[in-house]
């Protein structure tokens, strides 16, 4: 059974493995830059990989390798995202694009992607091929989001489609590889779909936090998405409601330009019920994931995965 202590021990090994790779790069690019490539955050992707791997009966060391690759892939996308967003803070620390400029951060992101690929070279014959497709989907999702910046014409389905690519794809990758590695029958649990849904729900939670959390808790600027002109799920609901559409769009247009607009926007999505709808959507997605998790072959571990999702849903960090 993957107890809390064993999860923490695994996370420690995953961190150590990432640092070991970082040390190898440090010899070529210096310690300060190498640290950005391997610095983990909340390690939600690792926790997901460990719990799902246990539910599928996958050898722990292999699940840890999948987790490390997911963390590197995630770091790569964050390094690139922060250039796109011109973000100054990430995980409470100055971003490399802010410190050294975007060209350095972009190259560090490229290195992080290669680290993800190197992790899984010998894991499973299809792991690298799947990662290539995943990277493509993540980049396409980001591009789609980039070109819809400023557009209020984003339906719920369209929003979820973009999120399924930019965030869901990496979880889908982890789940697909764990499925490849599983020695047990598990087709009905459909791990890739389960993984994609987990990615979507974590992104929606982040979208909600963008409105609700202060910068010193989330580690990034408040209402950053709105300031960048991105319509995330609470916004999609606010725009779809005739009562809140006009006031939302008026404040949304000012976000990032007028002081206090972020707070007024957060207040509006709360008051209009848009945040409540987004939270309800999250709960519905989690229920669909838990239905799949109940079909995993190692049921005691599947329950741990369900508990992990409950915690993710309620987290305020």
């Amino acid at each position, binding site marked *: 059974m993957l107890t809390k202590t064993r999860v923490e021990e695994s996370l420690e090994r995953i961190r150590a493995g990432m640092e070991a790779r970082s040390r190898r790069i440090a010899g070529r690019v210096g310690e300060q830059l190498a640290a950005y490539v391997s610095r983990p955050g909340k390690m939600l992707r690792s926790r997901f990989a460990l719990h799902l791997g246990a539910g599928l009966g996958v050898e722990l060391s292999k699940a840890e390798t999948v987790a490390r690759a997911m963390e590197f892939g995630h770091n790569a996308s964050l390094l690139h995202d922060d250039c796109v967003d011109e973000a100054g803070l990430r995980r409470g620390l100055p971003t490399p694009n802010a410190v050294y400029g975007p060209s350095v951060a972009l190259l560090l992101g490229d290195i992080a992607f290669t680290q993800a690929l190197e992790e899984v070279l010998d894991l499973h014959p299809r792991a690298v091929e799947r990662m290539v497709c995943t990277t493509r989907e993540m980049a396409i999702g980001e591009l789609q989001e980039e*070109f819809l910046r400023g557009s209020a014409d984003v339906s719920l389905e369209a929003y979820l489609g973009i999120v399924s690519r930019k965030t869901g794809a990496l979880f889908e990758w982890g789940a697909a590889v764990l499925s490849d590695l599983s020695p047990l029958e598990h087709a009905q649990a459909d791990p890739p779909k389960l993984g994609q849904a987990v990615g979507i729900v974590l992104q929606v939670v982040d979208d909600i936090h963008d409105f609700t959390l202060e910068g010193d808790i989330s580690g990034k600027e408040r209402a950053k998405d709105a300031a960048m*002109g991105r319509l995330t799920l609470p916004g999609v609901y606010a725009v779809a409601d005739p009562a809140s559409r006009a006031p939302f769009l008026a404040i949304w247009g000012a976000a990032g330009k007028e002081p206090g607009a972020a707070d007024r926007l957060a207040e509006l999505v709360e008051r209009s019920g848009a945040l409540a709808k987004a939270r309800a959507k999250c709960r519905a997605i989690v229920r669909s994931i838990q239905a799949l998790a109940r079909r995993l072959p190692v049921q005691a571990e599947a329950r741990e995965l369900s508990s992990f999702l409950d915690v993710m849903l309620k987290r305020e960090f």
Partner: protein
Amino acid sequence: MDEGLAGYGELVRRAWRTGKFLVKGPGRPTSLLKAAGTLGLQPRPRAGRGAPGRGGEKVPEARRSVRGEMEEIVKRESAEALGSLAVHQEGTMKLAPFVKFREEKFGAVLFETRSEKVFTLNKTGAAVVRAILAGAGEADLVARLRERCEDKTGKLEAEALSFLKQLKKKGLVTE
């Protein structure tokens, strides 16, 4: 190649050969990128912060035309998440495990990710799968399709049910 590009190419080759990435201009040394501007290649203007197009801001033409295309693409691909988010209920159908669906300009593709089999669908086939993802059961599938598609030939019901039979036979859709 126009004069500006030829000059820029020469500049790059020289910099590569000599290792000097600063170019002496009329005044103080300037960067290669800035020098390229003087040779007819203007660096792309830096995009402003915030959302292009909001609050009456002018969106550059090139960006606007891509955005229009992107809105269409995103709309077309919007069913992709439904396959993983649909909560299965009694009497409805769903995509079989490991089957992915993506709508394309010509219709759609179904992709069985374990066997790596790809099935291409025409627009009617795509509409059938989309209705299934939206929660249609066999009993109300045709009615749902009629809400979205015109039945000019009067063959919609027969074609849709025949296609559904094939999907089930190939194990792409399950009850």
